[in-house]
């Protein structure tokens, strides 16, 4: 058996397990936890296109989740447009706003870029909280929007009576975005982005227009992030600016990526697999006794990973898999 075959078998097993999981997990509560796990893995993978491959650290991505949720929900509530279409419109708006934010900020160095993305995101959140109606659009300020529960929803309404369809929608979205990331990381664009992230001056000297590729990555990342916003709105049927567009979500996305492994394909998934269950269970079982414990653990893991595994958890896991694979395929030490 060759290494390539082994990789394929492993991928197939993981994919089959993910698709078959609802056969075992039938409780809506646990299904919801899995849905949110995939939701975070999806968001982090989308973030990774900028935060991982383009080598900067955006800390305001929740604003694009908000743009997605608001766009599709306003279109549905006020104009009767299907959320499936609203989702794409929201994605397009998020991509445009992402480019507008990226144009001036990509010139900035490290910490300034972080602060800038925070200021943009918080500024937009504060504005949304202060606006009740924008022209004909009802935004509803800090109270947020309520997506009414339909009696007999069809697929076209993006609303389902059971959790199962949501599970498969977010799973498919996650697989698509992972495949997409894999494709990009192997393409010319991916190499250019990596070069621009590590050595912007050197890349520019080779004639690579770093800024343009970063903007492209930003537009893509924002588009994909906004799609998840619509998904969240249709899943929860209620959202408000502070919860959906606040810094907490932005930071959590970045943390998952950093702990899992920034700039790797599996990193966001591994990070979400570790942190989301931890988050949910400590919140469910311990938050009455010890509020905030899950965030203390979060912070400690982040600090420990940064000190001991600054590249994230994916690197040692990949090395482990590599060793196992070599044993199974019977090949000696790699070159």
């Amino acid at each position, binding site marked *: 058996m060759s290494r390539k075959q082994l990789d394929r078998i492993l991928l197939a097993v993981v994919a089959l397990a993910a698709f078959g999981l609802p056969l075992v997990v039938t409780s809506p509560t646990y299904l919801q936890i899995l849905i949110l796990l995939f939701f975070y893995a999806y968001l982090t993978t989308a973030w990774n296109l900028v935060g991982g491959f383009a080598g900067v*650290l955006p800390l305001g991505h929740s604003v694009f989740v908000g743009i997605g949720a608001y766009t599709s929900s306003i279109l549905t509530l006020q104009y009767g447009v299907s959320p499936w279409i609203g989702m794409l419109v929201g994605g397009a708006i998020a991509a445009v706003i992402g480019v507008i934010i990226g144009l*001036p900020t990509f010139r*900035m*160095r*490290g*910490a*300034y870029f*972080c*602060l*800038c993305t*925070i*200021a*943009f995101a*918080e*500024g937009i959140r*504060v*504005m949304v*909280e*202060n606006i009740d109606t924008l022209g004909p659009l009802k935004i509803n300020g800090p109270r947020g929007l309520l997506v009414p529960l339909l009696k007999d929803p069809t697929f076209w309404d993006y609303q389902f009576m059971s959790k199962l369809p949501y599970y498969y929608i977010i799973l498919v979205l996650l697989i698509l975005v992972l495949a997409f990331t894999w494709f990009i990381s192997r393409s010319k664009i991916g190499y250019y982005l990596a070069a621009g992230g590590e050595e912007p001056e050197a890349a520019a000297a080779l004639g690579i227009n770093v800024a343009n590729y970063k903007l492209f990555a930003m537009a893509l990342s924002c588009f994909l992030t906004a799609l998840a916003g619509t998904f969240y709105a249709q899943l929860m049927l209620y959202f408000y600016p502070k919860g959906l567009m606040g810094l907490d979500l932005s*930071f959590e996305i*970045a*943390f998952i990526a*950093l702990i899992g492994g920034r700039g790797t394909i599996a990193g966001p998934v591994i990070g979400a697999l570790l942190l989301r269950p931890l988050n949910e269970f400590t919140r469910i079982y311990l938050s009455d006794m*010890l*509020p*905030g*414990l899950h*965030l*203390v653990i*979060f*912070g*400690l893991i*982040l*600090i420990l990973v*940064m*000190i001991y595994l*600054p590249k994230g958890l994916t690197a040692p896991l990949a090395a482990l898999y590599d060793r196992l694979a070599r044993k199974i395929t019977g090949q000696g030490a790699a070159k």
Partner: protein
Amino acid sequence: MTAVIQAALNGAMMGAMYGLTALGLTLIFGVMKVVNFAHGSLLMVGMFSAYWLIRLTGIHPYLALVIVPPVLFVFGYYLQDVVIKPVFKAEGQVREPLTVIIVTTGVWYVLDNLALMLFGAEYRTVRTAISNKSFALGEFIISIPKFSGFVVAIATAIGLALFMRKTKTGKALRATSLDREAANLMGIDQYRIYNIAFGLGTAIAGIAGCVLIPFYYVYPSVGVVFDIRAFIIVVLGGLGSIPGALLGGLVIGLIESVFSQFMASTWTEAIIYAIFLIILFVKPSGFFGHKQDW
């Protein structure tokens, strides 16, 4: 007009508090080239320390000023030594390592939520001898705790500036901030200087905590209010600049209080972010910053 001037006076006094917080942040950035995301949490630690000290011993709030800052200096010194330094050492060659920023974010989460676990989420105040005292200046009313906070902020800035110029340690701090490698070659232990810078920044957060506690609420996430403003002030004043931090604080305090006379106070937050972004795009070095620092 009277109302506007009164608001401006209050804004200037609150702005001095923002400036005082920003002072520690700018010192840490100036020396270590790291934006300390945990700075608001350090202020929270300072406020809780002052709160419990006054609450349990009943001492005068300004007596806490001689106890809390030294304790926080030690806390900050060892926080940097144990938690942040290892990451620095791993990325020694990078001028502004992002991983260090991330570690300070982790410290922020740990400190804020430890406070939440220990003390709960409620807003606490402690009534002190000076809490509700005020004096009249013409037709304007000046609150005594806020005014003394203002005085302490300016005194701290002057003291810090003198320390940086006159003492050997201060000169070592400045040398490290100018050129890490050259300072190293001159026999300055870079990491000890970082410990001192972080300790000093934390001690200044302790000073701010002591002067805030007679008139401000303390709760586990109180730092976030000051954190975001301190970032903005530091960029406005120029990263690493002591007078810039104070001036930037006054500007933000004035904008906040004067604008809220004319519009809903929730909008002033959006205006502050807008001003911040405009400064960054137009003059990223701020009032007194160095050009190469952005």
